[in-house]
Structure formats: structure tokens, C-alpha cells
């Protein structure tokens, strides 16, 4: 790697030249190193070379000591009970010690380095141009030059801090959560690899390199969802996540092809410059943006591609926290923010993003109202919150979307890790008593606050944050999104555009309304989750109750840090009406990246009046409080019964529990026809039937048939042959004599 790094930095006079920022390549490389070490440990501990002649090896005994079926205390998976192998004494992995140091260690180093670079950026003063580091030429083809280049600017810095910071906390949590898993080093290998790809994603200086990270995180997500691959549900979920993401990736790829065709560039700077020559709101830029958004919808689980995310909860809970809440799923939001120049030129595409975001927000929130699996509630909540982020970046209020991305990373990671610690406790309790009940179903929980007080309090902080209660983090970011949306509905380039004949402002007001309703639902389902999990009587079981206990410090420690961040994260970007500190710090920070585009969308609109702003804030708070109050007063945890005694749902509740049957619809309308046509028509019909049957073997039969006809002249009668011969001779002679 080092010799390749001698390539010169582009801007020799860039303020970051010569600072620690030049070591930015080490930030992703450290997790990669962790992957290599942990991967080697993992394989070294399970690999036994087979005999030289494999054919003679039958019946040879062979130890099976890994591969994934977790005996983990925190094995959060429904089907687990059926396998019934929990009786084995829990043995820690023989390389657990090394992996515990390497896995989180590289993340800590990465985070420290990122923090140092951040300080260097702060110290470098006003930085308008991105700091681009070219390492080597990746795909030089003809006049296309795609380099392996990292781009460090305010946006990628912010993302890097989130990824390494939250990632570090989740890695530490995992040390406790996964401690007894036989695949311990493998888990950290995948997790490290994920962080590597995620950092490539956010640091990449061009779209194809971003795409490496983009798909790389998808691969890690696939591997981690299916981490306990011995259960079909898990490996199904992993596969589904990857394939659904690929649908989005097609959009991303096509968007890149169009960028190259129209702007002849694929690096961010080049696209930014090339965009200037495209007409505002033109078909090209709109199509590019829509295709890009297809990619974002896949990665960030928006309608219609959101179905993979709830299934992805089959992975270990730290994975859900890191990948499926805090970082990877926000990549779509990042991509739109990264491409802000193009999006701000395509109001129609922005409208689509906002509408899809708003629909997703309310749709997922409504499903979240009736889920019983604690992680499923959080999963739909994530989908819904991602919808908010898309409302933010889609409406050109890039900072608000990114702000929500950051605060969401804090409180959703906290919620997931908190649920992880609940599941951990539940699973341990069940493990001790050999009970195979569902450790994730809220109907089996209840009253956990007395057993795990730390988790309880921290989870409430996160719940208030996501519900939008001031002064917790989510309040500020969500309010900024909705406020920004309202302002843009009044006056912006998006409001002036129209979609399906309806003016943009109408759409935006509609989206605002959906956002409010979704906010109400958010407050309701989160309170519901808290009530069922922590309040009321305990439903875990008589014997099990004694084994419920708080998680060890290595798990609660990261929770506390995230709790603090969830509480004060709003200070990152305080609104003007609440000057509790520096106002708009994040907005100022991101201004060089998105400021111009934001201004372009606002098209010179004035400030929202103070009275209107206060009204909007008041409405938002009222809705949040109302949602909580509704859940608090109407839900009776006392009347709940454990899962195995529960009656099935009826009516619309049944539709909600079954997630509007979207998976089933996709199965019947897309998957099954494709497989059916492939098997019946293409393979059996065209391949075996038409080409092979009629074409290939048909010509063979034809040849054989012609031969058979010829053979019929061969009577074997010498006399006949002689007659034919003479007739032939006479015919030839006759032919000659006629000429």
C-alpha cells in the first residue's frame, strides 16, 4: 500500500496538506487489518486440512466445532428452540481473547485517528475545497480515469466520525453480547470488514469507489444477517437483503452510466462541474436522480424495497444496531446529500424522494404499532425514521436530513443495543431453565425495569428522543426536518414544480401532514414497546424470573455513552428559537458541501416568521406528547398474556401484524412467476424442448431419417442394383447425346 501512496495530492496548497489528514487512508485500513486478523483466527481455529485423496476419506471422523450455530447466550432467534442443543456447556472460543482486543481495538484506533483528523480540519480554518487524496489508478480505460481516491470534506468527516464512533461503541458491546458464541472471531471479522467498507463508502472520492463500499457493506450485511446460518430463516433473510439491495444497485449503476454519458465524469468534483452544463430540471438530471434514488431506496429500505430490513433482524443484535440502524441503511441519505448538486437541479426527483420518504415513514410506523417482536418494532421504526431523513434530504434541507441521520444513529443504536441487552437477559434466563420460549417477543417480557434498571432508564431516554420530546436529540432533528419541509412547501423550486399535475407545494404539505401523523405513531409505538417490555407485571415465567439480570459493564458502558449522546445530540445543530448553545453548528460545518444547493432550492425565500415557527414547534411537541399519552393511557400490560397463550389477531390488526402482506404479494407477483417462467418456459421449453429437442437432436433425427429413406433403396438384390446402374449409365449417355 505504502508505495502507492506517493501519488501527489491534488491541491498542493490545500490547508490540510501536511497535516494528519494525509493519514486518512489508515482510518479504513485499520478495520481491514482487523478483518484479516480475525478472519485468519476464525479459519485457523476451525480448519483441518482434509486427506490428500478426498475420494478415500469416507467415514473419517471429523470434528465439527464451529460454523455458526450459536450456543450464544444471546441467541436471538425464534427457531432456536427446536434444535435443542443448549445443554452443551458454554465454552468460550479459544481465540476469544485476541479477537476481543483486535476487533474493537482497530475501531478505537480508527476513531481516535478520525477524531484527530477532525481536530485538524477544525484547526485548518475555513475549508471550501475538499481534500482529495489519490492513491492509485483503479480503472483507467480510454479517456475514463477512475482512481482509488479518498475525498475528505465536512460531510465525509461527519460520517466518518459517526461510523467509527458508533461502530466503536457497538464493537465494545459485542464483546459482551457475543462472548459465548463459537463463531466469535468470525463475528468480529465480518464486523470489521463492514466498518472498512462503510468507511470506503463515506470517504470515496468518486461514485464507483463509493459503490465498492456500497456493495461491500451489502456483502457484510448479508454475511452478518446470516451469521447463524444453520437456521434457514437467517440465511433466507441475508439472501433477501442482498438481492433486494441489488435491485437498488441497478439504479445506482444506471445513474453512474448516465453521469458518464452526460458529464463524462464519475468523481464528485467532475460531476459537480459537469452538472453546470445540464439544464435545470431537465430530463437527464431528473432521470439520474431518480435512478440514484432507486439505489437509495434499496440500501435505505424505502418503499417499495423496504421489506428486507425487518427480516434482517435475524442477525445478531449488535449487527442490527450498527448496520441496520446507525450506519449502512443511512448510506442512501448520505448518497443524496453527496449528490446534492444534481438533486437540487431536479425538483421533480426531489418531490419523488419526499413523497416516498413520507409514505415510508407513515407506512412503516403503522406496521410498527402492532409488532410483538421487540426488534421488529425497532426495525419498522428504523424504516420510518429513514423516511424522515429522505424527507429532509429530498426537500433540499440536506442539513436537517443529515442531522437526523446523526441523532438517529445515537438513539437507534441505543435502542437496539438496549433491546440487545434485554434479549441477552431473557435468553440467559431461558437458557438456565431450558425453556425454549421466544426471547424477543414482548409478550414474554414485562416488568423488566426492576431487573435491569440501567437499560430501562437509558431506553426511556432513547424513546423520548425518537418520539421528539425536547430537549432530547430527536426533537431537534425531526423538528428541523418538518419545519424545513413546511418552509419549502411555502416557497421553493420544489414547490414550483409539479408531479402528476399536482403542484409541488401541494405534495409537500401532504408530506408534512404524513410526517406529523407518523410522528404521532412513532411516539405511540415506542411507548407501547416500553410499556410492554419494562412496565406492568412480568410474564417471563416463574422459574425464569430469578435469572433475569442486568448485562455486564462492557455492554452497559456503551449504552451509557449512547444515552448521553441521545440526550444532548440536539446541541449539534440548535435552532434559533432555542439558543441553548451555538446555533446551527452542524449547518455551518456542512455549509461548504451543501450550502449552495440548499440556497438554490430555497430560491431566495425569506425566513419563516417567528410566530409560525413557534406554532409548528408547538404542534410537533403536542403530537409527540399526545402519542405517548395515548399509549400510556390506553395500553394495559396487565391484560397481556405470554406468546404461547396469545390468541391470533383479527381484522385490520391481522393485516398490520402481517405487515400488509407485502412479502406475500412480492412472492406471488414477482418471485414465483420469474422462477416459474424460467423453469417451465425457458429451461424445459426453449432450452430442452426447442433448441435441443427440435434444433439439435431434431437435426440428428432428420439426418437419420434421410439415411433411413436412402437405405430403403438398398434391397440387397444384385439385379436391382444392376438395373439402376444401367439406367444411370443410359441417362448419362442420353444427357450427353442431347447436348
Amino acid at each position, binding site marked *: 500500500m505504502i508505495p502507492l501512496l506517493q501519488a501527489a495530492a491534488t491541491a498542493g496548497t490545500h490547508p490540510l496538506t501536511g497535516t494528519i489528514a494525509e493519514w486518512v487512508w489508515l482510518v479504513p485500513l485499520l478495520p481491514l487489518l482487523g478483518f484479516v486478523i480475525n478472519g485468519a483466527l476464525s479459519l485457523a481455529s476451525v480448519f483441518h486440512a482434509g486427506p490428500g485423496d478426498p475420494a478415500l476419506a469416507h467415514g473419517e471422523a471429523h470434528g465439527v466445532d464451529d460454523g455458526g450455530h450459536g450456543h450464544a447466550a444471546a441467541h436471538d432467534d425464534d427457531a432456536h428452540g427446536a434444535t435443542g442443543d443448549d445443554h452443551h456447556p458454554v465454552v468460550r472460543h479459544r481465540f476469544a481473547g485476541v479477537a476481543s482486543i483486535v476487533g474493537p481495538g482497530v475501531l478505537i484506533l480508527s476513531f481516535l485517528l478520525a477524531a484527530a483528523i477532525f481536530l485538524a480540519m477544525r484547526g485548518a480554518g475555513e475549508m471550501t475545497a475538499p481534500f482529495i487524496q489519490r492513491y492509485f489508478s483503479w480503472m483507467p480505460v480510454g479517456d475514463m480515469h477512475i482512481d482509488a481516491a479518498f475525498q475528505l470534506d465536512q460531510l465525509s468527516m461527519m460520517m466518518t466520525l459517526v461510523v467509527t464512533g458508533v461502530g466503536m461503541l457497538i464493537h465494545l458491546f459485542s464483546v459482551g453480547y457475543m462472548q459465548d458464541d463459537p463463531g466469535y472471531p468470525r463475528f468480529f471479522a465480518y464486523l470489521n470488514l463492514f466498518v472498512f467498507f462503510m468507511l470506503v463508502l463515506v470517504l470515496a472520492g468518486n461514485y464507483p469507489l463509493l459503490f465498492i463500499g456500497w456493495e461491500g457493506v451489502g456483502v457484510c450485511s448479508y454475511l452478518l444477517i446470516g451469521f447463524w446460518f444453520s437456521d434457514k430463516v437467517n440465511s433466507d433473510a441475508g439472501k433477501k437483503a442482498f438481492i433486494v439491495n441489488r435491485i437498488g444497485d441497478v439504479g445506482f449503476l444506471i445513474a453512474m452510466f448516465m453521469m458518464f454519458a452526460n458529464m463524462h465524469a464519475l468523481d464528485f468534483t467532475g460531476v459537480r462541474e459537469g452538472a453546470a452544463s445540464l439544464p435545470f430540471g431537465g430530463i437527464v438530471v431528473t432521470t439520474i436522480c431518480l435512478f440514484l434514488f432507486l439505489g437509495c431506496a434499496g440500501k435505505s429500505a424505502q418503499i417499495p424495497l423496504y421489506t428486507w430490513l425487518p427480516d434482517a433482524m435475524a442477525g445478531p443484535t449488535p449487527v442490527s444496531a450498527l448496520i441496520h440502524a446507525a450506519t449502512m441503511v443511512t448510506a442512501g441519505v448520505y448518497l443524496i446529500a453527496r449528490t446534492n448538486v444534481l438533486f437540487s437541479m431536479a425538483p421533480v426527483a426531489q418531490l419523488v424522494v419526499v413523497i416516498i420518504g413520507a409514505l415510508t415513514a407513515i407506512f412503516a410506523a403503522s406496521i410498527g404499532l402492532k409488532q410483538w417482536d421487540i426488534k421488529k418494532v425497532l426495525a419498522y421504526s428504523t424504516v420510518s425514521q429513514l423516511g424522515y431523513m429522505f424527507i429532509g434530504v429530498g426537500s433540499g434541507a440536506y442539513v436537517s436530513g443529515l442531522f437526523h441521520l446523526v441523532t438517529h444513529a445515537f438513539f437507534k443504536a441505543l435502542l437496539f443495543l438496549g433491546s440487545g441487552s434485554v434479549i441477552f437477559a431473557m435468553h440467559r434466563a431461558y437458557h438456565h431453565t431450558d425453556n425454549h420460549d421466544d426471547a424477543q417477543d414482548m409478550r414474554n417480557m414485562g416488568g423488566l425495569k426492576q431487573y435491569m434498571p440501567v437499560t430501562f432508564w437509558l431506553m426511556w431516554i432513547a424513546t423520548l428522543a425518537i418520539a421528539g420530546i425536547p430537549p432530547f436529540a430527536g426533537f431537534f432533528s425531526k423538528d428541523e426536518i418538518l419545519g424545513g419541509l413546511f418552509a419549502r412547501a411555502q416557497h421553493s423550486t420544489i414547490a414550483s414544480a409539479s408531479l402528476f399535475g399536482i403542484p409541488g407545494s401541494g405534495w409537500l404539505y401532504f408530506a408534512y401532514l404524513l410526517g406529523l401523523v407518523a410522528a404521532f405513531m412513532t411516539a405511540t409505538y415506542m411507548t407501547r414497546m416500553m410499556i410492554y417490555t419494562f412496565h406492568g407485571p412480568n410474564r417471563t415465567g416463574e422459574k425464569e424470573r430469578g435469572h433475569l439480570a442486568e448485562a455486564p459493564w462492557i455492554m452497559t458502558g456503551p449504552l451509557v455513552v449512547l444515552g448521553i449522546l441521545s440526550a444532548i445530540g440536539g446541541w449539534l445543530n440548535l435552532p434559533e428559537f432555542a439558543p441553548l448553545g451555538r446555533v446551527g453548528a452542524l449547518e455551518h460545518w456542512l455549509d461548504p458541501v451543501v450550502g449552495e444547493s440548499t440556497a438554490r432550492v430555497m430560491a431566495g425565500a425569506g425566513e419563516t416568521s417567528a410566530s409560525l415557527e413557534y406554532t409548528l414547534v408547538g404542534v410537533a411537541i403536542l403530537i409527540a406528547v399526545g402519542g405517548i399519552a395515548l399509549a400510556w393511557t390506553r395500553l394495559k400490560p396487565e391484560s397481556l398474556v405470554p406468546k404461547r397463550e396469545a390468541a391470533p389477531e383479527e381484522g385490520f390488526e391481522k393485516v398490520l401484524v402481517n405487515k400488509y402482506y407485502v412479502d406475500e404479494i412480492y412472492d406471488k407477483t414477482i418471485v414465483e412467476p420469474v422462477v416459474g417462467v424460467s423453469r417451465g418456459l425457458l429451461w424445459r421449453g426453449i432450452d430442452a424442448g426447442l433448441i435441443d429437442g427440435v434444433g439439435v437432436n431434431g437435426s440428428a433425427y432428420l439426418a437419420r431419417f434421410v439415411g433411413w429413406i*436412402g*437405405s430403403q433403396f438398398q434391397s440387397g438384390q444384385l439385379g436391382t442394383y444392376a438395373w439402376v446402374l*444401367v439406367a444411370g449409365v443410359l441417362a448419362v449417355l442420353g444427357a450427353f447425346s442431347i447436348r
Partner: protein
Amino acid sequence: MLAEALFFSAVLFAIGVVGVLTRRNAIIVFMCVELMLNAVNLTFVAFAQSYGAAGQVFVFFVMTVAAAEAAVGLAIIIALFRHRQTVDLQNINLLKG
């Protein structure tokens, strides 16, 4: 002289052909083939009178081949007779495809 010789060989040849076409006995067919060969030989000799000795040489070739053919052919017919107790060609269709 040439014309007479050619006429004679043509008649011989035609007799041979008719014999091959109409007779069933393998021996007779075989002899008719020999007849045709000799008719051709006669033509060669006749032409050799005016065109040089090459025709004569050919006749020797043909006679040699015919002798070999007779030896092999008669041997085959004898083998066939031993096998089938008949030399009637209508009863023999070993050449059938």
C-alpha cells in the same frame, strides 16, 4: 474393319448387360460380367490398331484383373453356395442396408 469390330463388341456387351440384368444364377451373372469385360477388351484392341499400343496394354491389365476377379468371385460364390445351398441371386440380399 474398325466398325465391324466395334459393332461386334457392342453386341457382346449388350448380351452381357442383358444377361446381368435378367439372369438369377450367380454363375451366369458372373459369366456375363466377364463377357462385358471381354467386349471392352475387343474395343481396346480394335482402337489399338489406329491409336497405338496403349490399348493392348490395357487389355493385359483387364485380363489380369479379370483373372483375379474370377478367382475371388468364384470362391465367393462357392462359399455362398456352401452356406446357403443356392446361388439364386433373388434369395441373397446380404447387401441390404
